[in-house]
């Protein structure tokens, strides 16, 4: 984890009456640093303010469960022939499918272009299929998506939806150094493409301050070495999972320590970084409209065996079925990694994120997302091998409880 720049005292939190952690400004409660000084009271009013969130279980609007399509060697991007069709695989992006989608599409469409065909079929309309289809259109192809479901019904929209390009994307040893280079290429290309969707109406993509809170001082020691021996297909410990984020440090906003005096949260240690988030509603609709506007066609269809593809008119096919490749392509190299998010009503006046005690919260345009990332101290092994894709209300309540408790402990002033 990056440490680094110390925040300027005036940079982060709301000014106003220095009475305590929270004060009333224009009728709303605002968090202030624990030790806000008289100096702060004089600070200009335009500094960013944090409204508190008080998540409650009885505010849940949805619990979404998803299976991350994890492959120890990284996503499957090889080429296979079935009859007279050439299949370009593009699946198995673990916990990084949104983040790497454009970069992965770029690699695959580059290979497709070399076939000189102008018509392409894309199987799947999750985030990986849809971005592959758009990338193919932008490269001049005539594209038809064949899919069982459109984006709003896919596993993709059951994700957390933030920039997590090396979240359970591969095992370091199994994937090897060549994949690390490929990952970097995908991550850089994706990041650059996402940036073209910033600043648009409806905020499909935006940046948000994310606060990492801790009861103990942050441990910046290097990660422990993985267990001896090769992990093969199955991760054995958190340390088996690849982390590549340091390779793109030059373009990703660094994490900053927040000095104690400026930490408004009831947790003794805090860090902050600027995090890119994907607002599924706005972004998903935008991508689907772009695809249609460019003349793309969507055929709703479910395939049962790879042989079914021989009936398609297109000779070139990009295969993006996500975790379903396990049964549709009979690929048992896919390991399920279960994850769940609970959704509460949107709180646009509190646009920030939190990571605390193994739970994550992101305030998004389509709701406040709360995820149990690692409530039981299992690290990256949480959910590994678990394909139980059914909501667990207890898990949701525990994750919400982490933040309910955090805000309940915050001293409040002003109503």
């Amino acid at each position, binding site marked *: 984890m990056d440490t680094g720049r110390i925040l300027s005292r005036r940079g982060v939190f709301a000014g106003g009456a220095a009475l305590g952690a929270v004060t009333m400004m224009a009728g709303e409660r605002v968090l202030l640093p624990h030790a806000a000084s008289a100096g702060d009271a004089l600070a200009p009013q335009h500094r960013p303010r944090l409204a508190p969130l008080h998540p409650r279980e009885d505010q849940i609007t949805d619990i*979404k469960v998803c*299976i991350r399509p994890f492959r120890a060697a990284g996503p499957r991007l090889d080429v296979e022939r079935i009859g007279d069709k050439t299949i370009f695989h593009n699946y198995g992006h673990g916990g990084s499918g949104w983040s790497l989608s454009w970069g992965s599409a770029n690699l695959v469409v580059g290979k497709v272009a070399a076939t000189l065909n102008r018509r392409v079929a894309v199987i799947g309309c999750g985030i990986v299929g849809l971005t592959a289809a758009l990338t193919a259109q932008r490269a001049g192809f005539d594209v038809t998506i064949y899919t069982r479901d459109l984006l709003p*019904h896919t596993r993709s929209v*059951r994700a957390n939806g933030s920039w997590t390009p090396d979240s359970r994307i591969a095992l370091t040893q199994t994937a090897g150094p060549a994949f690390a280079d490929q990952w970097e290429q995908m991550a850089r290309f994706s990041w650059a493409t996402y940036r073209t969707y910033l600043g648009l109406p409806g905020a499909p993509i935006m940046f948000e301050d994310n606060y990492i809170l801790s009861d103990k001082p942050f441990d910046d020691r290097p990660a422990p070495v993985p267990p001896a021996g090769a992990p093969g297909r199955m991760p054995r410990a958190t340390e088996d999972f690849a982390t590549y984020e340091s390779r793109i440090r030059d373009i990703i906003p660094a994490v900053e320590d927040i000095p104690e005096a400026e930490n408004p949260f009831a947790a003794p240690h805090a860090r902050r970084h600027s995090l890119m988030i994907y607002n599924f509603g706005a972004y998903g609709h935008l991508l689907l409209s772009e695809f249609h506007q460019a003349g793309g066609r969507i055929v709703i269809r*479910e395939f049962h065996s790879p042989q079914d593809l021989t009936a398609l008119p297109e000779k070139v096919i990009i295969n993006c079925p996500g975790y379903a490749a396990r049964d549709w392509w009979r690929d048992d190299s896919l390991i399920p990694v279960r994850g769940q998010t609970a959704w509460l009503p949107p709180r646009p006046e509190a646009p920030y994120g939190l990571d605390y005690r193994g739970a994550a919260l992101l305030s998004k345009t389509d709701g406040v997302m709360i995820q149990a990332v690692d409530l039981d101290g299992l690290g990256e092994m949480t959910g590994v091998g678990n*394909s139980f*894709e*059914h909501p667990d209300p207890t898990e949701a309540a525990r994750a919400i409880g982490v933040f309910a408790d955090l805000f309940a402990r915050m001293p409040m002033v002003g109503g």
Partner: protein
Amino acid sequence: MMRTKDMIARGIATCALGLALLPGPAPARPPAASTACTELAHGADLYRAACAMCHGAHLDGNFQTPALTGRFVANWAGAPVSALEAYVHRAMPLMAPGTLSPDDTRAIVAFLLEANNLPQGKTVRVGVRKALACPS
């Protein structure tokens, strides 16, 4: 045997949803249906234990999980029943794929066909009038 009867009753109640949509009187029950009825009852029981949690007691699915009626029928129309069985065996239940025995898989698929008012047989045949397999 009480248990079996009860299960059949519940299985048929599930089918009634689909049947209600179809016009015409139910055809007479074929002879020697008892083995098939036992399998259907077993299938209904297994469905409740292994599938209903996600796909719903009435096979109606939800936003995340596909219904096993309607589009399900269209998806499998004309396919060999063995392909449907192979899929169910390979992929379901999602939390423990491959754990259904071949007999249990056959029973569940027989139940799904029955629940959609489709005839049993080698192929998923849509639009064919079928006999009601079991007594209500």
